């Protein structure tokens, strides 16, 4: 559990530096258990910064959204840094973006937060469907203590923990400039829920499973927008010539889109679970991502977002890559 005052003090310290433009962090949302991103341009904004187990949102996408307007005559480029409050998986996303040269490490001030798992928003709203506000939420020895209207609810951690957190390989920030609080102990990794059940099925049954999910897809592309690593200026799904994916929403095109999305994150997905949590029709996208992550780990012994000096997975090769599938 992170000391809120420590976080606020640190954000104040960072934002008052001359070479920092603003700091991105979390604040309480307007209703229920929501969390909003917060931007501190000066020290007085820093007071509303929080960090609690509800802060699931991966903020690594925000520094990429920075507008680079054309400069006016004799105007100097704003080269100040951006501060960012980042959990373990957020720093992995940042490392991956830095590895792909999407951001420069020098342009970031990373305030690292050791994280012991976050709460799945869908699970907590299912548990308290009618609550519009909470006062505090704390983690204590395997329990979440949630205070609502003066009443304390104690709920076992497993009931609320987001699914992707069970297989998290980096609870502590991979890179940081400032670390808040003590590093946490990594926990025993579990396989992503449902993955081995699916793997045991035969091809036809798996298709029946995915067909049902892909049929529901409305192609809102929320998964793409929320993903910190889907930051291409022009997405292949939006191209008209060649049109890789037709605009119509049907099983064929939905399948092609979902294959494309999952494939483009092969060896890049850091497992933050954003895509799945924003999906309006609850497609288990993390199962696709985790399956690829597992294959990449088994075949190429590679994990995304752990080392910014490493070459991207598909940009390199080894002479002894397996090729038993080749005739």
């Amino acid at each position: 559990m992170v000391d809120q005052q420590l976080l606020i003090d640190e954000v104040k310290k960072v934002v008052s530096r001359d070479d920092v433009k603003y700091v991105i962090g979390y604040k309480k949302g307007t209703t229920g258990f929501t969390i909003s991103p917060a931007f501190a341009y000066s020290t007085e904004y820093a007071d509303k910064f929080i960090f609690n187990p509800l802060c699931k949102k991966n903020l690594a996408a925000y520094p990429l959204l920075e507008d680079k307007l054309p400069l006016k005559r004799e105007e100097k480029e704003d080269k100040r840094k951006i501060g960012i409050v980042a959990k373990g998986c957020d720093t992995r996303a940042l490392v991956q973006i830095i590895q792909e040269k999407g951001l420069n490490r020098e342009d970031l001030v990373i305030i690292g937060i050791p994280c012991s798992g976050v709460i799945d928003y869908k699970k907590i709203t299912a548990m308290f469907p009618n609550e519009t506000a909470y006062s505090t939420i704390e983690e204590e020895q395997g329990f979440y203590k949630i205070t609502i209207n003066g009443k304390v609810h104690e709920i076992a951690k497993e009931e609320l923990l987001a699914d992707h957190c069970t297989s998290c390989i980096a609870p502590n920030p991979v890179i940081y400039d400032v670390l808040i609080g003590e590093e946490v102990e990594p926990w025993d990794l579990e396989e992503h829920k449902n993955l081995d059940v699916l793997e045991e099925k035969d091809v036809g049954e798996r298709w029946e499973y995915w067909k049902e999910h892909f049929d529901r897809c409305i192609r809102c592309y929320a998964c793409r927008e929320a993903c910190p690593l889907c930051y291409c200026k022009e997405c292949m799904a939006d191209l008209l010539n060649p049109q890789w994916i037709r605009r119509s929403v049907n099983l064929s095109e939905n399948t092609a889109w979902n294959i494309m999305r999952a494939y483009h994150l092969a060896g890049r997905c850091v497992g933050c679970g954003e895509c799945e949590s924003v999906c309006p029709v609850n497609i288990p996208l993390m199962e696709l991502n985790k399956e690829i992550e597992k294959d990449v780990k088994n075949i190429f012994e590679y994990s995304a977002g752990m080392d910014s000096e490493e070459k991207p997975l598909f940009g390199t090769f080894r002479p002894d890559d397996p090729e038993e599938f080749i005739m």
Partner: protein
Amino acid sequence: MTATETNSEMEEFEPNIIGFLCNWCSYAGADLAGTSRIQYPPNIKIIKVMCSGRVNPMYVVNALQQGADGVLIGGCHPGDCHYQHGNLLARRRMAILKNLLEFIGIDSRRVRMTWVSAAEGRKFAEVIKEVTEEIKKIGPMKDIQRVNEW
């Protein structure tokens, strides 16, 4: 497009196979098979690409959507690539793509990769024979058929 539903038609099922062959080795190998008059099944429709590393995984997915029952990617033997290592990059991509398709429920035997050099006309014919027979066994691909033709 072969819409085969009944068993009697199933026996006559002739698969459509799209072959992405690299300009320097596999395509020349196919050429050699032709000039040497080696018989091989006519089910393969060849698209020449400059290198097997040019094959975007979406080519494979789109081919399967648009009526192909199988896709074959042909490249040079490792070390022989005209562009130094294009085929080795393709090898990595296809390994992951095959696993992903298998996981989604599309039989990964539909997507095959082969190394055929310019001198291996006979090997090319054998590969085509093997792929055609295997895809005949799997049956037509109708799960993700593209419906809108515009």
